């Protein structure tokens, strides 16, 4: 039970119509897009501005009540599950684009703004906000910043952290800090902006962000290359990069994924091939044409039996939208879909894909793989049934081996989905005990009472590393 006087003070602060404690509301924020995680919060609060956020945090600090900041709950690491109950903070009332500065090429936004809304608003001014996670129609900028989300355009344009110039944030004691600004250059002290990006709501609550925009590319072309085997597709990825071409998008989908996506999108994707690459290049028209021609040649050299360039913008958009639906579409096949986020250096994509397939066979599991091949960020996705405990155990084992392999290849346990609760046991595999220790001290310095998104990032237990024989 929450302290009644705490509730009264919260209501007084933000107005009682912005506070919910009924069971329907509580349940609605007990889950996010991560399968198999659920826990009930005790109170939901929608603040309207930075000062209100600060006031809420002060109260929570006083009463030692956990706070889970939540965007749209599309994260895939159980990052917004209120494991210890407490308060879930929503930003639906803080969803404005405050400024589009066309002279400095920046946008100042509140955390609740939907990623796609910002992208569209920028494009209306012939500007461009590149980070475009598959979830961009739903996810919020606050969530993107705290997961440091990457998108389909990550290969050429980078990820969210490359576009955050400054933040306004509320610390766990209620203090308001401003970091960075509309500056390209700034070395005054530690880079707090970068520290807060990807901090998964464990260090501070972001209440405003200054984002970098770039000019909108003049033109773009999208193409689909079909391969009879996975290795050839993966080799093509390496060859494209070796040829010093950086496409805006270079996505990989295997047969299982293709089938599921086509089932949903019905746009005539081929379902009888082992792998496809979805490639997009943008820039000046001449450069785009020349790059696309070179990429096409490389695809053919690697045995692609069909390379087709989308003839209209609409067709291109359809392809990209279909790709974004891949994860959810896969869940048509089995009741539970467990998606992972193993990432390797781009030259190792082929080896990693092969390993995933071998592991699936070894453990008798159905694992489909798709992902941002261009940046080595793969999503091996296991189709299973949460009710089948025996199989789930094998899934766990398989993914342990997959993570271990990724790390061995110089990769990481998560490329963009974050650590949250899901990857917490594996964190030390990537950064070592020393890394975990320094991160823990940073957390303690920001949040000595551990009230901000507790239970995330640092797991209660750590997995022992499995030995991989290659």
């Amino acid at each position, binding site marked *: 039970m929450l302290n009644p006087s705490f509730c009264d003070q919260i209501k007084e602060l933000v107005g009682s119509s912005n506070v919910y404690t009924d069971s*329907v509301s509580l349940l609605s*924020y007990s889950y*996010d*897009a991560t399968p198999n995680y659920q826990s*009930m919060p005790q109170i939901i609060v929608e603040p309207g501005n930075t000062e209100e956020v600060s006031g809420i945090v002060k109260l929570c600090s006083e009463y030692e009540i956990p706070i889970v900041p939540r965007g749209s709950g599309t994260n895939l690491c159980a990052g917004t599950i209120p494991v210890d109950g407490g308060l879930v903070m929503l930003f639906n009332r803080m969803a404005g684009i405050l400024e589009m500065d066309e002279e400095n090429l920046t946008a100042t936004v509140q955390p609740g703004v939907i990623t796609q809304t910002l992208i569209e608003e920028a494009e209306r001014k012939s500007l461009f906000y590149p980070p475009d996670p598959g979830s961009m129609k*739903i996810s919020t900028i606050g969530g993107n910043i705290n997961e440091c989300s990457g998108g389909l355009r990550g290969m050429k344009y980078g990820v969210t952290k490359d576009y955050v110039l400054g933040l306004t944030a509320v610390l766990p004691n209620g203090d308001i800090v401003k970091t960075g600004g509309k500056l390209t250059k700034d070395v005054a002290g530690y880079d707090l902006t970068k520290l807060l990006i990807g901090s998964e709501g464990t260090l501070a609550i972001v209440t405003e962000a200054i984002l970098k925009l770039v000019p909108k590319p003049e033109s773009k072309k999208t193409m689909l290359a079909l391969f009879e085997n996975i290795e050839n597709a993966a080799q093509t990825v390496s060859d494209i990069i070796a040829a010093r071409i950086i496409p805006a998008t270079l996505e990989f989908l295997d047969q299982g994924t293709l089938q599921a996506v086509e089932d949903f999108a019905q746009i005539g994707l081929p379902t009888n091939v082992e792998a496809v690459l979805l490639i997009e290049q943008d820039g000046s028209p001449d450069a785009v044409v020349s790059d696309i021609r070179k990429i096409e040649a490389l695809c053919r050299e690697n045995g692609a039996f069909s390379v087709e360039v989308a003839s209209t913008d609409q067709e291109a958009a359809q392809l990209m939208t279909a790709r974004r639906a891949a994860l*959810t579409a896969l869940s*048509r096949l089995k009741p539970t879909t467990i998606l992972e986020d193993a990432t390797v250096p781009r030259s190792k994509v082929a080896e990693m894909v092969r390993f995933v397939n071998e592991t699936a066979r070894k453990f008798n599991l159905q694992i489909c793989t798709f992902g941002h091949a261009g940046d080595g960020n793969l999503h091996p996705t296991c189709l299973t049934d949460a009710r089948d405990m025996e199989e789930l155990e094998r899934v766990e084992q398989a993914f342990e081996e997959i993570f271990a392999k990724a790390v061995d290849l110089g990769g990481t346990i998560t490329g963009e989905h974050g650590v949250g609760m899901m990857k917490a046991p594996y964190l030390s595999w990537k950064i070592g005990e020393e890394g975990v220790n320094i991160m823990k001290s940073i957390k303690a310095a920001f949040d000595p009472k551990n009230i901000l998104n507790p239970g995330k990032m640092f797991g209660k237990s750590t997995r022992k590393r499995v030995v991989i024989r290659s």
Partner: protein
Amino acid sequence: MTTPTTLQKQFKERMDYDELMNCTRCGFCQPTCPTFIETDRKESSSPRGRIALMKAVVDGVIEPDEGFERELSLCLGCRACETACPSGVKYGQLLEDARAIVAEHKKVPFFKRIFSNLLLHTLIPNRRLLRVAVLLLWVYQRSGLQAGLRKLKVLKWISPSLFEMEGSLPAAPSPFSRLKNSSAESSVSFFRGCIMDALFVETNQNTIDLIAAGNEEIGIPVGQTCCGALHAHAGDQKKAIELAKQNICAFETGDHEVIATNAGGCGAFLAEYPHLLKDEPEWAKRAVQFSRKIKDVSSLLNEHDQIDGFEASPQLVTYQDSCHLKHGMNVFSKPRQLLKSVKGVEFVELDNAGMCCGSAGIYNLIEQEMSMQILDHKMEDVKRTNAAVIVTSNPGCLLQMRLGIQRAGLEDKLKAVHIVDFLHEAQTK
């Protein structure tokens, strides 16, 4: 009083758990959901939220309390979420099942029960009674009673929104108008519907004429009745099943290959009889055969190459999708193609045309506030098109658009028309 636990037990026993599990909670459905948008992104008023709530009730995590029922009731049942869902979750069926369970356990207040029994059980499925009601409406409108009462604004005292709605009712057809059947030995049979049959006799006749003009024999099987959609959406599954069986029997006579519909809501529901009758083995096969034949009039006309035969005076025309036609029957390009084919018509796409207008069966009566909020936003989109005509494919949408026009004060600039009537008038011969 039924205790929540028995209700909970019913949920556990009767909800399709696999379908609930199918939802990955990705949220792709959310941006398409009108109630999610209108509540400023309230998770519990979204498809993902509602599915999570149903699952939580089944899992015993929450009780099916008033708040839960509230969210079920607030859903339009427009099924835009289904079209958007990459995982293929059959949300409409989940909703219908959940509503049926809740409705069966609910002690409905006496007057409401009498009213809904009267409306859903007595009036709507009974062609003759419905005619009497329309006759009364006709008398009311023609006798000057309506004009008088409107002047006195009597209804406005009782309920301002009822007053508004009553004003947007179409002129009742003359009690002497009857559907002219074209042929008994036909390849196409016509589903006449209940409301369509009573209030929109002309539209039904126009449908028959248009189809017949495409050299297709068309007949109207006797014994058919209301499709049952209104009943099912209100949670009255039993009555819906009864009506479904009656319709299946009626359309089993003769050997037509197509059953033509001109109301999106009816068409989509008829096509879903197999789900409705899933627990009745002896009906399952017949339901499948029946549902396979359902075809919307726009699709039918498109097939018949009638597309060159239309001409109208130059005008800007836009189209509001019928949710169930689009999301239930997957028909959305056909009506547009037809409209674009009319010489003289300049077609302008309506922003968010696929988003529900808030009519949704009897939703605009039960959830008036939300319905009007959605409608007013819809009219803002319509205004931006500058169109002179807004075309729809379902009687509910048509009435709702007329109400919207009235609320936005656009009566002299904009009219709402059923696609069949629009095409009928544009027909050259």
